[in-house]
């Protein structure tokens, strides 16, 4: 019997020839990520256990991205504690406020390689499955254990495979694909499972698109969201001087289910409040006025996302009464978007540019909503209270749909606007 991608990576991390779904293993962690919401408490707790070091300072990445720039004195004090911990623990990879969102920085700065086992104190750590890393979120207590020992227990997950066929229509993006999968299979459609993507349509998915899909796979409950390591992966890694070897599941691997997905007829999708799986085609949304449009987050704050929105917004103005906020996913994204004129296009259209960070997406600060307000955003969650008031409504969509909606002042189909670079 062959192995799925998840089984291959878990076997290597557990020092075994092979493992099978359902087994419990103790595995070595290749990379541990903590961000500013949890880093101070993780390192405080580590020191309380009597330890003065982490398991391997070269395998730890610390990112200040959620409370950026510090919106309160309390947040600033938390950041101050984190910087002291980073210095005392001699952690090599530290990205301070303004560098970017952790799930952008890890791949962008070359921390992720195919075959790694990655844990992070953030649910969307599944993002790195785009680069064939078995990457998943854990809580702070488990991260303390990892920081101390470099190991963690895992149950090897069953794998559900998604075979992607066909070709996306103009104005439709891979955000629409993962929204469609959330709607079709539900918010627990891959609970405790590894999602594995394959099929002929993968060649059309660039790394930015793959990162979007693996990011939001978590919203189906996925533990891992794995793409194979192929020529797209190799090209992305080559830009970072990282050699890549192909890595894919065995042809005779055992799957809990295999789903065939045809992309050809897919329309732009929108997740309605208050669940990520409450998804319908944009044409069925009806006439819904919006108050805010949000472009950003670890799901869709990359250069390709900003370009797609700018292509729609070029020489246009956002509607009166609509606020548009844009948060580029990293400083590198911002720099390149500035150089290409993408930021100028967005600002000329009426958007405000926020620092690279997570602020509005997790309801922390910058771009929150009042009772009765409606926001359409490119982020990943539309739960009650996610962006401020519990009486606000959040709709999730692609960068193209968010840009088209900002122009229209209501939720709009990007295929009716100018589309694509």
């Amino acid at each position, binding site marked *: 019997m062959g192995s799925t991608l998840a089984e291959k990576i878990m076997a290597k991390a557990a020092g075994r020839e092979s493992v099978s779904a359902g087994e419990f293993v103790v595995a070595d962690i290749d990379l541990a990520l903590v961000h500013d*919401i949890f880093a101070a408490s993780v390192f405080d707790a580590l020191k309380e256990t009597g330890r003065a070091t982490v398991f391997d300072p070269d395998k730890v990445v610390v990112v200040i991205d959620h409370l950026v720039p510090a919106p309160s004195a309390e947040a600033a004090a938390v950041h101050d504690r984190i910087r002291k911990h980073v210095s005392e623990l001699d952690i090599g990879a530290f990205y301070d406020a303004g560098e970017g969102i952790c799930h952008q920085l890890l791949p962008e700065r070359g921390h992720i390689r195919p075959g790694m086992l990655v844990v992070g104190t953030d649910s969307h750590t599944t993002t790195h499955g785009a680069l064939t890393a078995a990457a998943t979120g854990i809580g702070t207590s488990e991260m303390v254990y990892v920081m101390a020992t470099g190991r963690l227990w895992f149950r090897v997950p069953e794998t559900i495979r998604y075979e992607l066929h066909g070709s996306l229509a103009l104005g439709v993006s891979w955000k629409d694909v993962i929204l469609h999968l959330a709607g079709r299979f539900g918010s627990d459609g891959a609970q405790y499972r590894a999602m594995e993507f394959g099929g002929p349509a993968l060649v059309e998915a660039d790394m930015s698109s793959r990162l979007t899909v693996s990011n939001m796979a978590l919203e189906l409950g996925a533990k891992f969201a794995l793409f194979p390591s192929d020529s797209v992966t190799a090209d992305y890694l080559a830009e970072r001087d990282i050699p890549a070897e192909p890595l894919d599941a065995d042809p005779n691997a055992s799957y809990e289910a295999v789903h065939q997905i045809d992309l050809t007829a897919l329309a732009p999708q929108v997740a309605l409040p208050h669940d990520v799986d409450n998804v319908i085609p944009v044409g069925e949304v009806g006439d819904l006025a919006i108050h805010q449009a949000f472009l950003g987050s670890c799901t869709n704050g990359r250069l390709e996302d900003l370009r797609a929105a700018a292509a729609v917004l070029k020489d246009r103005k956002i509607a009166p009464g609509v606020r548009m906020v844009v948060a580029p996913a990293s400083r590198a994204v911002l720099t390149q978007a500035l150089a290409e004129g993408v930021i100028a296009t967005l600002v000329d259209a009426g958007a405000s540019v926020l620092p690279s960070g997570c602020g509005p997406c997790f309801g922390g600060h910058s771009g929150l909503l009042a009772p009765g307000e409606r926001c359409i955003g490119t982020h990943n969650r539309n739960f009650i*209270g996610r962006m401020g008031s519990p009486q606000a409504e959040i709709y999730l969509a692609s960068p193209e749909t968010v840009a088209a909606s900002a122009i229209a002042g209501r939720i709009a189909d990007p295929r009716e606007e100018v589309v694509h670079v």
Partner: protein
Amino acid sequence: MSDALGRVWKFDHDISTDLLSPGTYAVDPVEVRMLHTLESISPSFASEVRAGDIVIAGRNFGCGSSRETAAENLKALGIACVVAESLSRLFMRNAVAIGLPVLLCAGVHEAFNDGDEVAVDLTAGTIASADEAHHLQGEPLPTEMREILAAGGIISVLQSQTEG
């Protein structure tokens, strides 16, 4: 592992970590944070919950973020156990990691209501109403997870490994 006998607080499907631990209070201390637990959908929960009460929920309880504070808030408020049709992976791991007992049990959302007195046997994986009108068999946690719970959480495991 001790049994739990307590009063039911019942919630629906897809109760998210944003409801259990709103992002606005993300870095507040637990004494503050726990007072906002589920306030968007059950404003009286945090003030009226009593030590030993039991949360019963539908599918996908604790979906969303990795924030352990979702489980920690419930534990700090005195919740003895969460019994749900299904739990998000992260919530389940976090609950075990901090020593909050959980039980997966089909039919539990239908069988029980707010205020019911129920008894939970974690080892056997059962939940029953005090009057025995309902008695459901759930899925006991795997041994590996029950050992962490029995130790009081993964930090306790770490400390015992260090001492050992």
